[in-house]
């Protein structure tokens, strides 16, 4: 009898040991991701902090690393987002309202929905090829700020539509019913009740999508955003550059001084992304309190 008990105890303690070891292994695996993120951030700050001065913001690109700045790239990124924001907001939210409020549950709706989720998985460089053919050549917008903004709009639209749909879906049925009960039409209900209730959720999604666009490089390389722009774009038809393109250009050079400059540029870009993400989180918190 005691022999069985001993064997049993041994088996249990073995299984417990195994559980403990794997617990530690899982913790280790999880921390790899965190350690990698820390290494990345520390590496960039150490490399870039030295060149992080006012020149970076006020100077145009230069062949001399010591004098080079990213003024045109910072302004280009801001302009691009300012053009994108209204277009992608209207198109994305419009599509989301249609799919959530108006669309009948039929094959066409299912097809559009499937199509949106498929588009979200298309590599960004393919959007670049599309933009190059349709906007740069097809509509002869050339390598302009507008071409870049329109291409990036197509890229972020699926993300905006899906998040706006989620925000609209979270609006309680009762709000719509209340609006209908007061005699409002469908559009009055959507415009006066559903949209105000979901707007902070929608804006959160839009800001996150725009912050993705700020960091996106590949499609704009295809569009032909220049890497050496010593002027600020004065109209939407002007040529332009953006922060990630400027950073890519600096990384591609062999000199270490340009690599450090790229690191400073990355710090500027990341700070901008962090600020956008913080504002998105603030909006989201406000939103979750509201409903």
């Amino acid at each position, binding site marked *: 009898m005691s022999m069985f008990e001993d064997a049993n105890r041994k088996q249990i303690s073995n299984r417990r040991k195994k*559980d403990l070891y794997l617990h530690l292994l899982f913790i280790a695996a*999880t921390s790899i991701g965190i350690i990698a993120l820390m290494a990345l951030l520390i590496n960039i700050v150490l490399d870039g902090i030295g060149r992080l001065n006012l020149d970076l913001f006020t100077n145009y690109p230069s062949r001399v690393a010591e004098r080079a700045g990213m003024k045109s790239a910072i302004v280009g990124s801001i302009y691009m987002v300012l053009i994108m924001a209204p277009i992608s907001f209207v198109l994305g939210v419009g599509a989301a309202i249609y799919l959530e409020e108006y669309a009948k549950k039929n094959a066409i709706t299912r097809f559009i929905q499937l*199509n*949106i989720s498929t588009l979200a998985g298309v590599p960004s460089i393919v959007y670049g090829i599309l933009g190059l053919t349709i906007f740069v050549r097809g509509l002869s917008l050339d390598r302009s700020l507008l071409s870049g903004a329109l291409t990036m709009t197509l890229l972020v639209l699926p993300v905006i539509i899906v998040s706006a749909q989620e925000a609209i879906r979270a609006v309680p049925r009762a709000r719509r019913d209340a609006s209908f009960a007061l005699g409002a039409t469908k559009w009055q209900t959507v415009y006066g009740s559903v949209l105000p209730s979901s707007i902070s959720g929608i804006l959160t999604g839009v800001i996150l999508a725009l912050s993705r666009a700020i*960091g996106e490089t590949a499609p704009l390389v295809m569009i032909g955003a220049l890497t050496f722009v010593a002027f600020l774009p004065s109209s939407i038809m002007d040529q332009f550059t953006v922060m990630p393109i400027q950073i890519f250009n600096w990384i591609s050079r062999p000199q270490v001084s340009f690599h450090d400059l790229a690191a400073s540029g990355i710090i500027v870009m990341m700070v901008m992304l962090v600020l956008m993400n913080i504002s998105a989180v603030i909006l989201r918190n406000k939103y979750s309190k509201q409903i």
Partner: protein
Amino acid sequence: MESNVAPSTTTKMNFKNSRSHLSDKIVPIILFLCAALSVLTTIGIVVTLLSETINFFKSVPFMDFLFGTKWSPLIEPKAFGILPLLSGTLLVTVIACIVAIPIGLASAIYLSEYAPKRVRKIVKPILEVLAGVPTIVYGYFALTFVTPLLKSIFPSMGVFNALSAGIVVGIMIIPMVSSLSEDAMSAVPKSLRHGAYALGATRFEVALKIVVPAAFSGIVSSAVLAFSRAIGETMIVAVAAGATPNLTLNPLESIQTMTAYIVQVSLGDTPHGSVEYGTIFAVGMTLFVITFLLNILAQYVARRFREEY
């Protein structure tokens, strides 16, 4: 009967003012057009790629493209075999998955089965930050941190190599594997776990024998999506993997992926309409078809093999 119906419709009419009546007719059409734009985008992508690719195949035989082992469209003697680009892409992607799938899956198991709520609340957002870092930043990280680190282990390794790029692409897709797998695991009902615990199972046994099998379709689909994402990744490989189309499986060598090739051509000034220009469409088409099929596969796996409770 008739006299009852008629007044009620007229009163109904009186409630509607003409402006809202009009808006309820036009607005759905405008909104539908917004939604239809996504379909137009897809059609645009397919038509763009297809028309230029067909042009391209008028001057380059299809079989030479698909099975040729040499890719040098810009330098004489010209050769248009995509296999070196495919092998380069595959090499980077496989390295990325070797890094991301075990780590991502282990993180998912830890977060969903082991981690206390407090730890989970901190660790999850940190992993999500990894997904939000721009790819050009990962490219910088690969070139200036990971490559020198690897060089101290493999001194013969070049500045541009598949290994460093692959590892960093892997780090980039960890959050994709971990958060999608964790979603699948959290969807497994608590009662299944409780049943196993009641029989005396340890946490590891619950995770391995109950949760993972029940969430298997979601886990596989997350892995397929991560694979597809790695294939389409551009800037990391453009910065760190090199620009030498090389039919090799040696991760220490410089290679070129499909995406990096497209970037290389668009950085130069290749004349519009030439065969060289056509290559970006043919390569882009190949890329699009592969990622499209993988995404469909991921959706199919998630739906077809889902365990319903």
